[in-house]
């Protein structure tokens, strides 16, 4: 497809990388010449310099025959105007705008047609939702849901002294006492799909798929207590904090929010009546102690500086806080995260890109393409959701007889409302949903691409 990306910032360039690798034609628009030069040297794209909301610039990008325009510049108003203009020039175009200001949140959904926006993404809100999911369901470092929330892929770490230590995958199900499937392992930054005789070691990251009930069972059997989080401390009062505090307090969790800027505190206190807002410096250990960090069930570090968030998380772990979630915007390397000892990491930029790529894949859906896509393990693995139709090959063939591409694994099958964790004898039928897991270097567009 021909896709115009307006704004070559963090999200813009990340989207460019993803969409180019999926074989789309990308036209990147930005005002800043240097950034464009940098991008066009890295990716096979066309770069256009100019104001993405101006008719002249948009015409240069060939908006008339483009399929999608993604507006991810710094300003919400800009993004909206860009979509509106593009839509006027080409009524068939799909428009995706990033809208971050909470004050616009409602009107975007209610006035979608007026603004000509097919999809509005809000990275901070997505991040807040993600963190909320993690907090309400502790024990996992990360969760992705599929098939209308029926199936999940979760990440967990083998901690020292865990019953999973030095166990081979074949014997794992006896220990876990649940029907789950390990689809990938991350050991020291290297991600691979393991075979049955693979032996787990301390600090391995496991990616496990299963139904919610089975996953809960699994947590119990490895001794992770799934106590409900009752009090949460949020450090930093940005947009993610706002959304998260709102979500948590609405579900009855006690929330304490720490923010340095006094004016911002006043504003937050006005819009979040059930949250206790404290004006103070979250990087000050004494202050955190006086606020009772040691008694919190969970601490979430959400300041706008990665370094600060890491330090706060380390403090929290030091005080024995059970669950610590860290927001990270820039650090992409798992090795650094491991070296510092971060566990649950949330990156709003990644979530936003995931959201947009999912929408674009769904647009291609007619041709048997993936319904949704989730990347995990530092983007080295991807999970894709497909719907089986009459054109799909190998219907009713047991999985063990299928000739799948190397690095591809069928992680689960959904039939009606049920989730099947497959073994060698399972097969799929028409109208089933299947989730496959693959390493990032295998290219899969349509469901039939999974076969060798």
């Amino acid at each position, binding site marked *: 497809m*021909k896709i115009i990306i307006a704004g070559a910032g963090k999200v813009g360039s990340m989207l460019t990388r993803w969409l*180019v*690798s999926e074989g789309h*034609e*990308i*036209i990147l628009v930005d005002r800043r*010449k240097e950034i464009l030069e940098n*991008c*066009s*040297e*890295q*990716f*096979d*794209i*066309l770069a256009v310099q100019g104001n993405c909301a101006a008719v002249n610039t948009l015409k240069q990008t060939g908006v008339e025959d483009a399929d999608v325009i993604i507006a991810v510049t710094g300003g919400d108003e800009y993004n909206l105007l860009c979509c509106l203009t593009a839509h006027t020039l080409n009524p068939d175009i799909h428009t995706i705008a990033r809208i971050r200001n909470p004050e616009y949140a409602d009107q975007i959904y209610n006035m979608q047609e007026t603004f000509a926006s097919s999809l509005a993404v809000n990275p901070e809100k997505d991040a807040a939702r993600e963190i909320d999911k993690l907090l309400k369901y502790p024990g996992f470092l990360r969760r992705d849901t599929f098939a209308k929330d029926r199936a999940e892929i979760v990440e967990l770490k083998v901690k020292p002294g865990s019953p999973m230590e030095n166990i081979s995958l074949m014997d794992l199900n006896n220990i876990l006492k649940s029907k789950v499937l390990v689809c990938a392992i991350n050991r020291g930054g290297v991600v691979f799909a393991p075979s049955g005789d693979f032996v787990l070691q301390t600090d391995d990251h496991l990616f496990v798929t299963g139904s919610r009930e089975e996953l809960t069972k699994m947590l119990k059997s490895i001794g992770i207590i799934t106590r409900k989080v009752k009090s949460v401390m949020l450090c930093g009062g940005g947009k993610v904090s706002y959304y998260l505090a709102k979500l948590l307090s609405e579900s009855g969790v006690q929330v304490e929010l720490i923010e340095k800027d006094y004016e911002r505190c006043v504003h937050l206190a006005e819009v979040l009546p059930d949250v206790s807002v404290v004006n103070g410096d979250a990087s000050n250990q004494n202050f955190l102690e006086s606020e009772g960090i040691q008694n919190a069930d969970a601490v979430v570090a959400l300041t706008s500086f990665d370094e600060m968030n890491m330090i706060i998380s380390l403090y929290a772990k030091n005080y024995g806080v059970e669950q610590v979630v860290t927001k990270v915007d820039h650090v992409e390397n798992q090795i650094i995260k491991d070296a510092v000892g971060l566990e649950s990491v949330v990156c709003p930029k990644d979530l936003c890109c995931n959201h947009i790529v999912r929408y674009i894949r769904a647009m291609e859906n007619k041709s048997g393409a993936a319904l949704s896509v989730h990347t995990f393990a530092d983007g080295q693995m991807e999970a894709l959701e497909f719907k089986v139709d009459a054109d799909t090959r190998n219907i009713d063939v047991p999985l063990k007889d299928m000739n799948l591409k190397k690095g591809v694994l069928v992680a689960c099958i959904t039939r009606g409302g049920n989730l099947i964790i497959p073994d060698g004898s399972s097969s799929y039928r028409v109208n089933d949903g299947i989730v496959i897991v693959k390493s990032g270097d295998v*290219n899969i567009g349509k469901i039939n691409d999974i076969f060798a």
Partner: protein
Amino acid sequence: MNYKMIGRILSMVALAELLFMIPALLISVAYDRDGATHAFAVTIAAVGILSLITYFACIKSETRFYAREGLVSVGLGWIVLSLIGCLPFYISGEIPNFLDAFFESVSGFTTTGASIMSNVEGLTEGMLYWRSFTHWLGGMGVLVFILAVIPASGKSSGFTMHLLRAESPGPDVGKLVPRMRQTAVILYGLYIVLTILDFVFLLAGHMDVLEAICTAFGTAGTGGFGVKNDSIASYSPYIQNVCTVFMILFGINFTCYYFLLLGKVKDVFKDEELRLYLGVIAASIVLIAINIRPMYDSLEETVRHSAFQVATVITTTGFATTDFDMWPTFSKMIMVMLMFIGASAGSTGGGFKCGRLLLLFKTLRRNLEKTLNPQKIKVVRNNGRPVNEKVLLSLYTYLIAYVFIMIVSILVVSLNGESMTTTVTAVIACFNNIGPGLDGVGPTCNYGGLNVLSKVTLIFDMLAGRLEIFPILLLITRKTWKKLV
């Protein structure tokens, strides 16, 4: 430096070249020329095995690829290309001296057309074909061809930009469409169509098929190797005129043709570079025609020779229908100036390029105005769009390098002891990829008599001229080969 990736690109260059050598082999077989057949077969087999080994040795390369790797691959790529290209000449013994064979091959690929041969008609058919074909491949660039054929790998797809930029002529290289592969396909598509058109028109003038192919290759790449000792002079006026028209066409920026196809006719004719290019051609033809009128019998002949010679020099082709060394000084001076100007950016022609000249003039005017009123802020515009100061800066750098290389080369070639005119025009003609100069290297003479040092210098000049100086200059810069730039 990512040596493995460069190794892979170089082996792909070699393999692509061998692929194109096969027709030459077949022609040699068809005409029953054992020596030439043997030479082509040996080259294809030996180089083929060597480059396959290199390719598989380098297959597991990292994907790091930046401007430095791009420039080095292009620089080395063209040297490899010329080295392989000269092997058939040397092995078959048709050009017995290796340096001469290399000179001929470089001259072919850089579309210069400067020859060391005094008797071109002595070459066998396969060799003639190969000699002219080097022009065609060199004209659009072999790496652009590889970009068109081989799908860019997903992860580091951006590296293709470095290759295109390093190989394509012009101050500001850009893509036509988002995908590099499509851009390359469009460029080669236009190139092939125009070449076939030229070939058909030549055939219509009752030219021999092989000669028509060779002449079309020479015209398309704006190269200038003829198949006759007197170049195009003995052909009919019709064929000469066809050559004139197509030389001028191949000297136009290929983007213009793409826009014509898209129906943006107005934009094309408003293009300032195209206007300058056509304007200079028209003015030169008229001035020279008036100046040389007494030398020829009819007006038709005067204009035909004037137009042909102007076209051949400004597009840096280097064919000839008459010995312009015999012309009056005024006409000769115009020819020398045209040598400097060169064709349009983004065409197959060489020289300084009309586009650069235009920008230089505009900058000069801007800077003069600024001297009168230092507070004045004025942007240099090209086709109505503001030109980035960075582009202007690289333009100055180019000018400095251009003049500097020219002066040093003239000094080195002067050791040869030829006349002033010969020395200076030999360098000008090679550096701007034209071919024939004046006096000792004029249209009726050749470069065979120069000494080894001069030939090596001119080989360097030809490569530097075709690749717009930097890729070749960087190869001999120590910093390029350091771990940290």
